[in-house]
């Protein structure tokens, strides 16, 4: 009990404060998530190409969106309730990053947004997520390959979050205020994701013979997708040159150092497998994706595409 007049425990429920006033109309507002950048200054820094900035935001936004989609597929399927909730939480953090980055892409270059019929209520971020074709997505292929067992999602999330945290740490210094703000926030969130993945990696490596076998199998399978995380696309190099983006090659040393630390504590050898080849040098950043990606998109986009005039 408390004497604080701002609290309402003595009336029985902490939720009393939400229902005072007797006007129920608030419950009918629905979940019309408006522009996540409402009121945010989206002026493009001097000397930066608008279309290039938009395409760069799609790269980072698509990584978060597709990783979020794969993590969401774990909902109700994790080994226990706590890890189910953990995976859903991390998916939500990444979805939030994706929303801001896709909205930032649309604000920098409205021409990047797929055209929809006049009067369509679909916001730009949704048009980008649900109405682009596979070859228009710029995510790295690590985010899109099909899910496997629990060890698989632990390894995937470790590789992804080690690289993403290294990237966001650097992106905090971006000349683009929106990217810098997304990064400053994201560093705090992805730190928790990386710790989660690192601890589970260690736990599975030092657990049972079976957990270790599964972990090593997943690591062997996903390792060829790791080099793409630190391989620069020409656009990333030019945005890094402009002080807006990050050259992923510049973070390769940190990525390796963190992974080696996890491997050493876990008693696991660094895999020796070559990078998954692209097609004529083209990989996820160029819009060249795996077969699994089209299935992911089909499921992710089907409802929005069936109802292009829908209000949610």
């Amino acid at each position, binding site marked *: 009990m*408390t004497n604080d007049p701002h609290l309402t425990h003595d009336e029985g429920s902490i939720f009393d404060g939400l229902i005072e006033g007797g006007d129920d109309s608030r419950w009918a507002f629905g979940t019309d998530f408006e522009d*996540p950048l409402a*009121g945010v200054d989206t002026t493009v820094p001097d000397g930066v190409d608008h279309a290039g900035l938009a395409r760069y935001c799609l790269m980072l936004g698509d990584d978060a969106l597709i990783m979020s989609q794969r993590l969401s597929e774990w909902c109700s399927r994790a080994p226990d309730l706590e890890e189910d909730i*953990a995976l859903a939480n991390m998916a939500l953090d990444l979805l939030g990053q994706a929303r801001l980055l896709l909205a930032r892409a649309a604000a920098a270059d409205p021409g990047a947004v797929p055209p929809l019929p006049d009067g369509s209520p679909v916001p730009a971020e949704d048009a980008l997520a649900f109405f682009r074709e596979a070859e228009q997505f710029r995510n790295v292929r690590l985010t899109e390959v099909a899910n496997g067992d629990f060890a698989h999602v632990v390894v995937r999330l470790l590789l992804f979050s080690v690289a993403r945290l290294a990237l966001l740490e650097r992106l905090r210094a971006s000349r683009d205020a929106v990217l810098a703000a997304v990064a400053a926030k994201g560093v705090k969130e992805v730190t928790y994701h990386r710790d989660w993945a690192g601890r589970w990696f260690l736990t599975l490596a030092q657990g049972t013979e079976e957990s270790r076998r599964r972990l090593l199998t997943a690591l062997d399978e996903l390792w060829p997708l790791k080099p793409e995380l630190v391989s620069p696309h020409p656009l990333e190099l030019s945005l890094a040159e402009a002080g807006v983006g990050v050259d992923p090659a510049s973070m390769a040393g940190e990525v390796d150092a963190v992974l080696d630390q996890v491997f050493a504590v876990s008693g696991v050898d660094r895999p020796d497998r070559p990078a998954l080849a692209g097609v004529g040098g083209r990989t996820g950043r160029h819009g060249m994706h795996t077969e699994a990606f089209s299935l992911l998109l089909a499921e992710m986009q089907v409802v929005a595409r069936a109802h292009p005039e829908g209000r949610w």
Partner: protein
Amino acid sequence: MVTVPHLPARERAAEAAAQVRDPEMPMLTLADLGVLRDVAVERGDGGEVVVASITPTYTGCPAMATMRDDLVHRLNGAGFPRVEVRVVLYPPWSSDWISERGRAALRAAGLSPPGPARRADGPVGINLGPTRRALACPRCGSANTRLTSEFGSTACKALYRCTDCLEPFEHVREI
């Protein structure tokens, strides 16, 4: 709704906005949570507009739309028909911004308030060991607690269990 008519518009608006509660942790006001960053009154063509600025606790926080609607609703009720809610992304929200009154309200409602957030300026080291927090069970006060999961029912909470009274409780994470 108590309004104090002799106060300047900005102060009346700020007072009304400060009473709006967080939809997921309704023992806290948005002001005590540190989410309400600013309330200003701007002169527009059609009269004065109240501009309330809020920042998300987590990037994907699904409660932002509800916070916006609740702010508009409350300010309309306080005599401000024109309200604009703006999102502020920088500096990012920190659990350090939860006020002392907010921490007391969390404890009173059975939630463990956050400790100091870790600084995140340079490279962040990976933590492979168990998370160490100096916590007290919000029900019995025991310091013997065990982390169940670093991720809880909302993005901002971890799950704990008290090993003395055996009750589970939620801890607002440091961020």
